[in-house]
């Protein structure tokens, strides 16, 4: 079982991102679950979502304590949250950032999802949409296929710019 913990802020679309990643994995023929932790968070608060991908049905409902992959959609959450907590020794990190980020030696990929969203006008209520480009980055990391990433996006949003953003993130991811 491959376990992903996704850190974001309320309003950035982290929950929808988790759902779309699980959806894409299911479209790939795998079993997957996405369970965001719902608290009393409001827009802007640090939030966390969990994604599990496996070849057999997932029977686990609890939160992920030892992720294989940590995704940080908003690097500023790292000021208050230890996003690396419990990460597996061979775990990896994906950060939304224009610059290389030191994640205590864990292999870290980066992509500037914010710039991608802004460059094609993917903005909702003043905030850049980060979740759809994130799927492109996940496809580049091999978590999901490009086709399933596109399909999961299209089933959630009917604006083709979201797919364009994912394609761009796929190209721009720096491993």
């Amino acid at each position, binding site marked *: 079982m491959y376990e992903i913990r996704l850190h974001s802020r309320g309003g950035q679309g982290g929950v929808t991102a988790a759902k779309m990643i699980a959806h894409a994995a*299911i479209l790939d023929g795998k079993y*997957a679950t*996405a*369970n965001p932790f719902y608290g009393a968070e409001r827009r802007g608060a640090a939030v966390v979502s969990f994604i599990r991908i496996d070849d057999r049905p997932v029977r686990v*409902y*609890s*939160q992920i304590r030892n992720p294989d992959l940590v995704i940080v959609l908003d690097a500023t959450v790292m000021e208050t949250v230890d996003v690396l907590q419990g990460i597996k020794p061979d775990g990896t990190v994906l950060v939304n950032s224009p610059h290389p980020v030191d994640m205590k030696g864990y292999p870290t990929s980066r992509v500037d999802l914010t710039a991608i969203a802004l460059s094609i006008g993917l903005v909702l209520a003043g905030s850049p949409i980060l979740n759809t480009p994130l799927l492109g980055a996940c496809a580049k990391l091999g978590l999901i296929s490009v086709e399933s990433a596109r399909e999961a996006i299209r089933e959630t949003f009917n604006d083709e710019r979201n797919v364009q953003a994912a394609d761009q993130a796929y190209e721009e991811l720096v491993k």
Partner: protein
Amino acid sequence: MLTVATGNKAVATAVKHAKPAVVAAYPITPQTEIVEQIANFVETGEMEANYIPVESEHSSMAACIGASATGVRSFTATSSHGLVYMCEMLHWAAGARLPIVMANANRALGPGWNIWAEHSDSLSMRDTGWLQVYVGSVQEAYDATLMAFRIAEHEDVMLPVMINLDGFTLTHIMQPLETVDIGDFIPPCKIAHAIDTANPGGYGTLTPPTEHFKFRWDIERAMRDSVDVIRETEDEFARRFGRRYAPVEEYRCDDADVVVVAMGTLGKEAEVAADILRNEGIRAGSARLRWFRPFPAIDFGDKELVVIDRDYSFGYGGILARELQAAFGITPYSVIAGLGGQEVTYDDIAGFVRERKPGAEFWFGVSD
């Protein structure tokens, strides 16, 4: 058709397929998505039903009672405080023998204010005469909802059915969902004692001491008959759609020395714990109780039991543990865990089994 859905969406989709004539509802976290989705189905014409947005849960159940009394299929959904607010009407629905189907998103009762999973809400409605089933996955939420209509409306049952799913843990998780073309799996709703204006009759009139107990006994007789109806419905469901359910879902129980008994999602998580324990040489299994009313007959033989209660009866004990103890004369290790959404992992459950002390009660996070 394979889709991806939350537990709430699965219930709403099953309700759409069951085609109730009336849905009356009042929103409450974490159930709101169910009635929101149904309202959307009705609004877009995907579903033909009379959707009645009411001002409280007491009224949503009253509206379902009214609808059902005219002989049509009805549905509502609620959670926690909403469920206990409609308590009086729950007794009314069962007493009037109306096959209403309701989904309950299991959630703790306040204060302190808490919106997360706990079974105290539905278990406190244990003696209302409703059948109660607890589900453990998104797929099962869909399947159990379809079966609930057929079971409730069966002429040998004619009692309301409550489908329980863990708040947030199951209502909001995203999992694969295989929907089916239900065909004639749910026969047309026929309620023999429905209101007929051509033949006026009295409903809910004064029932004297010479008669009342007969109606009570009739409820119990139907509850006992429902055991066969449930089995027959689950068999027919498996025949048609390929997914098999039983009142108790057993996992690696056959040769087990110790079995974890739980309801809802903790019962699924317990399967993973059993796998871990087996690797350590402890012969463990999981028995996930699905039907709580009617209470299933289970033969645990001489296996040790670790019972996880996501509920509590103050001054007495874990409700499931106590019921199992009373029904089968066993002495379980009673674990109280997961109250108000408390995190309980498969590792924690494996720990309960390793540290078990038959006859003792252990409050996770409190006891040493």
